[in-house]
């Protein structure tokens, strides 16, 4: 039981990482007419909320770099109506308390908006603080927790999908693309994983074309899940969906391959990590293997993504971190909203313009519903190739459903 507690804790930690990795907070501080950020001349200050220290510091650094790439270009091209943009970086360390302090720092610095937000644990308290400060615009890049937008604050626009978007998309993938008729669902006993599993189950039952023959948890932190995989085989399942996190998924994939099991193996959005390929290159290249995931930096294959990766590599001599594409799009969105009316950078006006944006970003078509969530959020299904990287095999468009990924 002690084991269970610890494992659950670790699982939540990872989830927070994933959730927050995707949330760049681009908040424009709502400055009053006389304040520095909005006085008609001088610099425009933009805050970045990101974990630049702590366990997620690599992702946080990446977010700062992605924003800097966009802003450097804007400044080189003459800024916003002649005014330079200055970035103010605040470190949320992926923790609630540090997140609150970082948000306070940005408010004190009189930024016109904030972009960033990786760990939901740090993003959520920051959101409250910005809300209490005249709804300082907060462009959330990577935090996928539904609570980010469920509060209904007008200052929030979010560039990554919601955690609860995963289940319907995964169910569609299993039923329509993989044509599963006997489905097995496995979770890792964490709150998040169980809820995805439950939602998938519900969608599959509604569709009525497949039977659910297995729906159970495994205990994270163990090394041998062959008995559970074996049990899935005896149920006659044609497909197994795992909704937990990547460390266990790597082991499951390896043992699934070594037992040569007859069903397809699908990982959910928390299962993607290069360590899965490392755990078993043979399994992750198997045509019956795939992972349903957000479109992250290395997975996107469009001219904008390629240009971004090249510019990033040129400036920083490194590859972008997985969630930098969302921070990039969020920063671009904020710049577009600033440009629309450089004379009116107050929170209320800016929030309206941020919500009304509609443009093509690296991560697809971007526009927002009345909560501030993306109207249409794309997903991918990926598999490893021989070079040891993931490549998309299917893509999900909210209007067209699943289809083979075009190159």
């Amino acid at each position, binding site marked *: 039981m*002690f084991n269970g507690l610890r494992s659950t804790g670790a699982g939540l930690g990872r989830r927070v990482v994933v959730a927050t990795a995707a949330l760049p907070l681009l908040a424009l501080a709502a400055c009053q007419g006389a304040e520095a950020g909005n006085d008609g001349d001088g610099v425009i200050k933009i805050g970045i909320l990101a974990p630049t220290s702590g366990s997620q510091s690599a992702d946080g650094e990446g977010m700062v770099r992605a924003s800097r790439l966009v802003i450097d270009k804007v400044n080189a091209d003459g800024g916003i109506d002649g005014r330079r943009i200055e970035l103010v970086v605040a470190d949320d360390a992926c923790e609630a308390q540090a997140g609150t302090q970082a948000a306070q720092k940005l408010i004190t610095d009189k930024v016109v908006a904030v972009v960033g937000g990786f760990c939901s644990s740090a993003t959520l308290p920051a959101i409250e603080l910005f809300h209490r400060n005249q709804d300082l615009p907060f462009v959330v890049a990577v935090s996928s927790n539904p609570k980010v937008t469920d509060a209904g604050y007008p200052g929030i626009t979010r560039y990554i999908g919601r955690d609860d978007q995963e289940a319907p998309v995964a169910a569609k993938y299993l039923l329509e693309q993989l044509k599963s008729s006997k489905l097995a669902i496995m979770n890792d006993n964490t709150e998040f994983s169980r809820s995805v599993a439950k939602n998938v189950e519900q969608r599959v039952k509604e569709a009525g074309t497949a039977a659910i023959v297995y729906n159970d948890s*495994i205990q994270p932190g163990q090394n*041998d899940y062959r*008995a559970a995989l*074996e049990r899935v085989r005896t149920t006659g399942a044609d497909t197994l969906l795992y909704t937990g996190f990547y460390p266990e998924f790597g082991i499951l994939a390896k043992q699934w391959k070594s037992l040569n099991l007859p069903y397809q193996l699908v990982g959910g959005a928390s299962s993607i990590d290069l360590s899965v390929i490392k755990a078993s*290159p043979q399994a992750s290249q198997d045509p019956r293997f795939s992972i349903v995931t957000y479109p992250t930096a290395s997975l996107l294959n469009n001219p904008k993504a390629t240009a971004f990766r090249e510019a990033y590599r040129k400036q920083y001599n490194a590859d972008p971190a997985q969630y930098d594409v969302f921070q990039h799009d969020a920063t671009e969105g904020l710049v577009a909203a600033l440009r629309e009316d450089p004379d009116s950078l107050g929170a209320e006006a800016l929030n309206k313009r941020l919500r009304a944006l509609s443009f093509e970003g690296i991560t697809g078509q971007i526009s927002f519903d009345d909560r501030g969530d993306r109207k249409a959020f794309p997903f991918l299904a990926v598999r490893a190739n021989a070079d040891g990287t993931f490549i998309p095999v299917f893509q999900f468009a909210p209007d067209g459903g699943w289809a083979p990924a075009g190159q």
Partner: protein
Amino acid sequence: METLAQVLIIGFTVGSFYALVALGYTMVYGIVRLINFAHGDLVMVASFIGWVMLQQAWIRDMPALPGIIVAAGVSIVGTALLSLTLLRFLYARLIGRSTLGFLLVTLSVAFALEEIVKLVFGAREQSYPNYALATETITVAGVTFAGMDLVVIGLAGVLMAGMIWFAQRTMTGAAMRALAIDHDAARLMGINVNVLIAAAFVIGAALAAVTGVLSGVYYGRISFDMGFALGLKAFTAAVVGGIGNIGGAVLGGLVIGVLEAVVQGYLAGAWSDAFIFGALILVLYIRPQGILGERVAVRA
């Protein structure tokens, strides 16, 4: 039927790992009547030592099997030295003086080892090289199992048989058993108590090192927090089997491993820990001394 055979093989493999670690708890307990809660984390340190060795170019150039043996050898020596150092500088002063102090210090060492490894290697799990022999499978009469299952069960069996032989048939083993009965009487008979205590810690550490490297080679994944859950289950195995009894540790490990596999394979995976610790409570209720344990005499 094939499924049952498969589940049992998996259970014996997992149980062998638990049994090897349980032996470490039981050795130390048998002699000093104390629980070393840092023992599970020695497995973790050992698997990291093995991992570091396997990254070295000169070992990578070797064929797989000799490379693994060299890495395991270095890991055994390193883990044994670590265990001796901890005994000499932290534990020795507490043995026989403060039972609670010893428990707390070993618990602190467990957390310290985890934090140190996390600082050095990071919080992410590391992967052992992908060995072909770790994924080879054998199918006999419809039952598929990994070749490594046989290696793990076989190696654990040999080590455990060796331990029993050592305790029952050698002079040092006899001295250890004497020590387990009465420290003072043993000392009066000319037994060097401190050397034997050190020997128990070294043997436990060596078995932990074998477990750590073997688990890394087979399952591929190691992480800074892998030792705690393993240690707790192995400790449970030692208690279920009858702590202080070598055969009991082996039996307890196998019982827990098979229980885990059967629950996962037939009942509900989410309940496997509940079953294991439920079994612990049940065994202790019926036989407080464990399955093979003897009633421990009250010592002066």
